[in-house]
């Protein structure tokens, strides 16, 4: 048995851990609860886009952190992508669009606990307003 839960949202500043809490048309889907039968997160799918690439050099690594009282071993933080953009005029494209991947993981969770998803761009030059989409699979 497994279930997939998705959240999405933007980050506004570099080196700032930002909660990813919305779900498209569902603006407030609420806290993520670990299903009563689940003991692991086995997959994390992450996409990163950028809706307002700036007219300046930009580059950053992207991190995702999973936290909450449903995490048996506490916060888990991993890299999920990176980008650079060297933009000087309007109309240039932003990040290359390849930051989309499925990650097999092995993370213990507590049934009925809560899980929070966070994203951030590391120290660098924020190229715009990166948008994260994060899906986790409980099993």
């Amino acid at each position: 048995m497994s279930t997939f839960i998705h959240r999405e949202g933007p980050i506004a500043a570099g080196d700032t851990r930002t909660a990813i809490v919305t779900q498209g048309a569902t603006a407030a889907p609420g806290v993520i609860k670990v299903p009563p039968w689940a003991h692991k997160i086995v997959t994390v799918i992450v996409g990163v886009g950028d809706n307002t690439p700036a007219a300046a050099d930009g580059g950053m690594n992207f991190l995702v952190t999973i936290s909450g009282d449903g995490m048996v071993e506490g916060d888990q933080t991993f890299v999920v992508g990176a980008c650079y953009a060297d933009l000087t005029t309007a109309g240039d494209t932003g990040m290359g669009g390849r930051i989309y991947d499925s990650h097999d993981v092995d993370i213990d969770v507590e049934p009925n606990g809560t899980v929070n998803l966070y994203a951030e761009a590391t120290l660098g030059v924020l190229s715009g307003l990166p948008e994260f989409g994060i899906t986790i699979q409980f099993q």
Partner: protein
Amino acid sequence: MAIYETREGPMAAANVWVALTQCGSQGALNAFSVPARHNSIKELWFTFTEPVPADSAGGIVCVKLSGGGLRYGEQYFVIGGQGREETGNSGAADGMVPVKFKVNIAVISGGEIWAYGAQYGTDSGTPEVAVTAVWSKESAPERYYVARMLAAGALDTDTLLTTLVDTVLGAIAISPSCHKIYSVFGVQGGITLATATGGTGMIRLRNGIKEGEQSFCVGAQASLSTTTGVSGGYSFAKQTMCDLNLTGGPISPYGCQSGVDWGTPVFGVGLELGP
């Protein structure tokens, strides 16, 4: 069950190891501390980026693990490359997903492990390198991760890769306890692209292997840059699992570009060695 921890930070000059001490908004966390009751790193995830890309610059990106938490000493990896030739300074952009290696790194619970990054080649600015260690309670066998790198300019010409970031070491010496290569890591980067050029990169392993010479494709490059154009981008190291037997003598790694001369690529190779 696994634990995921990350360190990241910016590089400085080319060919210098820099400690990765930060974790985004958490600031300076310094070294990893091996989690209690954990005995190995079973995966490493890497990303790197370029906040201030320079013209006609680039190279490969490397990571070193060092510290008393490593049961078999320092471990070295080539993780990717960047190349850039821009004359018009417009619109280059690229993105990457993590480079992931399956590894067997035995660690000592509670020990300290520092992660270092380095850009090797022509200083491309201040690339930022991030490393995620995936800790496991499983034990790991004896393994050594070694690497060599060098620029290889001439077309269809083998260049002996002799360097490890800041030190010329020559061929890869084999520890008496090592009898096999379990995986090979290869990458190319650091190009100085000319108009309408491109081709593929190759790593050759000569000497020291009972099965004889081994050769691997390690990347490709294409450019149609003009006076106002831009070309460049990421390349990513690939891990090729293998089962090659060693003679005990040193291994000579070579890099070579083929196709239409696409400048001065830097080649990097890594080997996973063990009993």
